[in-house]
């Protein structure tokens, strides 16, 4: 029967050694395969040559050279569980294992590196902080879209009216994201202006023309920034005001 090229050490599974411990194997050979290891560690050959080892790493001496002592040195900082294969010659496969960064240089005319893109693939962000910032950006963009939406529907808007009265559409404190006046009529002239008033003093619409004339108009899609008090003001019994608004 032919002698096995290599055998496992330990032969009945893995063994665990503590951090700082050295595990000696009095075995002769010229080939070592790290069959399994949950840490990086060192291998000493005949107490001299020091090799940096990890799972799936293989070592082979030159053809006529051999070692007689293999020492497993655990300097990983953790316990080390491992199993080696040790013998002569070893067995090779076509697998290519690459660890660490790989730099690729393509300067040949008939070689081509292609990037494969996946259409319709959702971008998933694992970092919660980054995802949160993306959500904020999306909300801000949607808010801008809402602000600029043309008057094609009054869906979502609230109706308010006033005759010789003042109706608060939104206080300054509650106006945290802005108010849109979708539509509102206004009346100027005569006794006093009537229309949309901001912060108790400023009317969006014209006030008086100085000639005692009365004129009317309509506001549409006016975005009022956050922090501003918004009221619908009717200055008299013959000043019928209406508005549709949205508090964002």
């Amino acid at each position, binding site marked *: 029967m032919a002698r096995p090229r290599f055998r496992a050490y330990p032969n009945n599974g893995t063994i665990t050694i503590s951090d700082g411990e050295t595990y000696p194997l009095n075995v002769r050979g010229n080939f070592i395969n790290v069959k399994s290891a949950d840490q990086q560690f060192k291998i000493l050959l005949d107490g001299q040559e020091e090799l940096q080892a990890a799972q799936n790493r293989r070592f082979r001496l030159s053809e006529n050279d051999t070692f007689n002592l293999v020492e497993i040195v655990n300097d990983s900082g953790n316990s080390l569980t491992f199993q080696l294969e040790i013998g002569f010659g070893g067995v090779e496969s076509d697998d290519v294992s690459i660890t660490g960064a790989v730099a690729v240089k393509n300067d040949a005319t008939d070689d081509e590196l292609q990037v494969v893109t996946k259409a319709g693939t959702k971008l998933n962000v694992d970092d919660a902080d980054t995802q949160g910032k993306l959500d904020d950006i999306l909300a801000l963009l949607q808010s801008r879209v809402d602000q600029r939406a043309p008057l094609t529907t009054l869906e979502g808007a609230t109706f*308010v009216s*006033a005759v*010789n*009265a003042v109706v*608060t559409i939104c*206080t300054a*404190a509650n106006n945290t994201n802005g108010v849109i006046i979708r539509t509102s009529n206004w009346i100027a002239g005569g006794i006093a202006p009537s229309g949309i008033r901001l912060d108790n003093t400023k009317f969006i619409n014209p006030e008086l023309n100085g000639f005692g004339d009365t004129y009317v108009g309509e506001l549409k899609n006016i975005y009022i920034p956050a922090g501003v008090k918004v009221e619908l*003001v009717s200055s008299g*019994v013959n000043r019928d005001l209406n508005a549709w608004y949205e508090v964002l």
Partner: protein
Amino acid sequence: MKKPTIQNMPTSQEITALEGDGYVFETHDSKKIVARAKNSGVEIIWLEDGTEVIRDLATGQFLNEWPEGE
């Protein structure tokens, strides 16, 4: 939502003057409505004697007070 406020409570002379100009006051319980406001489905009217009447526009139910809140 904040309760609306009346802008100006007209005097009887002012009411007479307005009617003379052709303005027709609506009435509630035979009293002239001198101011009105609506917001978010609730209406409040002020009558010439200072009385306030509040009602839910959806149900028509009269309310004792304006549903307050900022």
